[in-house]
């Protein structure tokens, strides 16, 4: 879940200035967001896609301020470090 373009992100701005104060002078912008890993079962990829889209629409993202994007990976568990993007 990422904040929509144009929505002020004070958390991202604060992290950005912290990075610059650490010497990363080229950091121009930081946008904060939220990552969730969801372990669930689906018969096929298309079903999984549809289900995740619905989860995002109904609960995970607020369309007023956020956009959601996702990636479906088969046969990986939430606790599996390899599942990290």
């Amino acid at each position, binding site marked *: 879940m990422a904040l929509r373009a144009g*929505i*002020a992100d*004070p*958390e991202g701005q*604060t992290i950005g200035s912290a990075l610059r104060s650490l010497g990363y002078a080229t950091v121009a912008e930081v946008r904060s967001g939220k990552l969730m890993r969801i372990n669930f079962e689906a018969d096929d990829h298309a079903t999984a896609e549809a289900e995740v889209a619905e989860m995002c629409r109904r*609960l*995970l993202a*607020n369309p*007023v*301020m956020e956009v959601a994007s996702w990636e479906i990976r088969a046969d990986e568990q939430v606790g599996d470090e390899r599942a990290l993007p």
Partner: protein
Amino acid sequence: MTLLAGRPRVAVAVFPGTWSERDFVHVAGSVLGWEARLLWHTETDLGDADAVVLPGGFAHGDHLRTGAIARFSPIMAAVGAFAAAGGPVIGSCNGFQVLTEAGLLPGALMRNDHLEFRCDWQTLRVEHPSACASWLGDLAEGDLIRLPISHGEGRFVAGAATLDALEASGRVVLRYADDVGRVTADANPNGSERGIAGIVNERGNVLGLMPHPERAAEPEVGGSDGLRLFRSLERWLHDQPAAAERRL
């Protein structure tokens, strides 16, 4: 004119993590002598309530987003039906956040622009009180009232089109202002767009505001401007045949 069968009845919803419910019950019950009832969020029936309160706090721990889980609590279906029937609903602080997540009010409340939790007295300018007769009927255009704020996520945002529509229809009813009523960046405690502190739905019966009227109902606590919202409701109920009928 008097109520046909006694006192106003308010239902105060309580979610896991709500913290202002007892202040509402204190004001409605002890200060005003109304009937006030706490309703756990799993309830599906509001009973004979004349008005519904969604109080402040941190419903469901504010997890995911403020109000995002609470909107799916069973009681919210009843609140939605009550609102659809024209019943007066007020959401203060976390209650406002729940109302926006539930789609009963537009926009969203985000992290304060300075990232701090802000707990303070705040001056508010009243606009278009007639757009929300049930909760603001006793107030006048341009009135300045002082109410406490107490929130970390009160920055009202909505798309430009939504903001323009709210303004055009006179549904921005409270703005953060300085002591003489100017809506300035300095008077804005959280970075809300256009200094918006409170809005009402199209029908005028659902009010959402970040400040806490229930914490300003007795001079002993520093101010009693919050009482004016409760008094408005009382007068409005007196004048409503439908509310009176429910009492028979």
